[in-house]
């Protein structure tokens, strides 16, 4: 996994992986009785990459803009009250963003529709949100893939929030395939599941793979509260960085993150995939 450093717009061309990896970033949530723990320092953490202890730094996460990608279910089962609750929830989340944050909206029924790219033009996303017209089947996994790719395209801390009320009925991609992509991405994925989605273990597993988790709600009016909770929880996460030492350069790396303090729960992605960069003509070596 590579640390993506934003390049000035004038120089930004086709993104290429740099052979000069500078570090790995891990978003970590620490809670005690479900309340985020604040004030921890780098020395409070212990991180192992494939069992090898690593030297870590903490990035002050409150200063880092976040990229929020909303992946909303717009299938036929969300018709009526569920859609209006989703729209209101999305609107509330937008209101909770800071000026330097960015937000994108992707919807999915059988068709995945990237309706608004990552932007700080919140009004644009608001308009896109209010134009939702539910219909059709549900391609959640394809939608999550598109959301991850949207998050992946820009530097920064990325949060993908998937809101759905059902299970996948139409995606081409299978859960193991989206998992492979999630392992290679920086994005933390949260799920907010209503209706039949609450029993869908694939969504839960996928989110936990990225260090996020899935929240089950009883009624769609709870979307609003949970989206705001997710946003707040994401802002309270610690961003650990390290340059891998003593481990192979490529392949899957198992991560283990602990806090040197009892009674807390630590949530972080269980691993990442580091791939050798694809050789393209003209790329630097």
């Amino acid at each position, binding site marked *: 996994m590579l640390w993506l450093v934003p390049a000035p717009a004038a120089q930004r061309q086709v993104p290429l992986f740099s052979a000069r990896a500078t570090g790995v970033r891990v978003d970590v949530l620490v809670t005690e009785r479900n309340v985020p723990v604040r004030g921890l320092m780098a020395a409070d953490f212990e991180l192992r990459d494939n069992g090898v202890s690593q030297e870590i730094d903490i990035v002050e996460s409150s200063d880092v803009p976040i990229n929020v990608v909303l992946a909303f279910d717009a299938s036929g089962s969300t018709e009526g009250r569920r859609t209006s609750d989703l729209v209101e929830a999305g609107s509330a989340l937008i209101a909770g963003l800071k000026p330097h944050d960015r937000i994108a909206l992707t*919807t999915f029924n059988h068709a995945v529709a990237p309706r608004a790219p990552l932007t700080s033009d919140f009004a644009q996303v608001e308009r896109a949100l209010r134009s939702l017209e539910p219909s059709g*089947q549900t391609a959640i996994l394809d939608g999550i*893939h598109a959301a991850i790719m949207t998050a992946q395209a820009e530097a920064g801390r990325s949060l993908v929030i998937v809101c759905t009320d059902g299970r996948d*009925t139409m995606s081409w991609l299978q859960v193991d395939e989206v998992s*492979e992509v999630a392992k290679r991405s920086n994005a933390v994925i949260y799920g907010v599941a209503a209706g039949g989605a609450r029993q869908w273990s694939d969504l839960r597993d996928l989110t936990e793979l990225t260090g996020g988790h899935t929240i089950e709600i009883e009624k769609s009016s709870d979307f609003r509260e949970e989206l705001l909770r997710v946003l707040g929880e994401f802002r309270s996460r610690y961003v650990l960085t390290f340059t891998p030492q003593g481990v192979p350069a490529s392949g899957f790396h198992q991560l283990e993150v602990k806090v040197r303090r009892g009674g807390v729960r630590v949530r972080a992605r269980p691993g990442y995939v580091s791939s050798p960069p694809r050789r393209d003509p003209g790329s630097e070596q």
Partner: protein
Amino acid sequence: MTRALLALGLVALAGAGGAAQEGSISPSTVEAIERWAGSVTSHVPGEPDPAVRAVWSLTLEGRKALHPGMALLLDAVAGKRVTSRSPLVRRIADIGVQLARSPGAAEFIKRAAVLHGDAAMLGFVPPLIRPIPPDVPPPPGRASLSRAAALDAPLLIDRQLWLENDGQVVGMTVADWNWVFARSLLDRLKPTGADPFVGQWYHATMAFMFQNRMFGEVQWHLEHAASVLPNDARILLDRGCAHEQQGLPRSQTVLSDDDMVALRMGRLGMPSRTRRSGSVGLTLGIQPVEISNRDAEGFFRRAVERDSRLFEARVRLARLLTLRSKYEEALGVITAAPAGTAPDAIAEYYAHLFAARAERALGRLDEAAGRIRLARELFPDAQSALMAASHIAMLRADEDGAEEPMRHLALLPYKRDPEDDPWWVYETFTGRYADVLIAEMWKDTGFSPRAPRLSSVR
């Protein structure tokens, strides 16, 4: 997108089953038989003519009026002697004898099957959703009963179908009795299944059912077709398709976790009026995915064995093999297809998509990417190919290759038709030539509107 699921055995017999008794033949029975026979002989295949409209107007009461005399009439058409002295019974028998002379026994039966098949197809409308009555057993996954004895009274079948939308059961609708009756008519052609028309009729009507997402109805249709034509490659393929459709996520999501546990544990709810006898069978709704796919795989294998040129059977078999991690075998099934047997671009597209998945699973990412490239050439805007391309590129650490398909996706309209992506119509794909097959079937009947009317029989 509302679909009709397999009925959960709400097969009710409206009235007495079995052969008619003499005492049940009334003057109204004779009149109903005369009208019906006249409809059969006057119907022009493919036309919503007065004959079809007469069938459409047949309520359950009308069918009850027909029922006592129907077996008698058809037996007489087939040449069975009637010894009864009842004038009403003899009248019906005489009608049957006349029909056996003109247009001929087999012709009459075929015309009758065409009439009722046409009534079903020409009268097909999107299902009217009815709320589920409180006394009806709960939705899919629960056991139900289908009485074998019901086949003795095909006119009186009263069947319900569950309707599903986006993975949730939304209500019920009434199944069309015309299909049951039409099948029972063709069963009278002896030797069973020998007449080429029977296969042609089943091929055309199965395609119609798949095309119109009649997944509940098609299961019964196929089971019956298979009993008549057990080695027909096309029927084997379609049986596989019906089972495969049940194994797709879009069907499996209808089953709740509780239903799945009940199915697997063998705990199946039975109506209190259940009685066990030799004639009572037990049918399930949607099977667990493993069983659906296993059964589908078996039918596809048999279809390929019967006809190695059936490209679609190969492609579908390959998909199921990849689900079982039989990747090399999946690729072999596709590559062994005789040259030039891919019937159309959609079938080729599926072949590339499924082959790409197998290649990817075997770690051959370059080959997988090549297959996806071919798929995208066939359908550049298909979401499935765009997703596959992006996914493969991510695995190859090709960042731009992963993002490009998503940029392409972002340029497409938000509202997209099911036909925009072949993957979205996978469950109906096998019915895509329904219109052609039906038109050919109608044309090949050779039925003339100048066939003698029943008025000359009186």
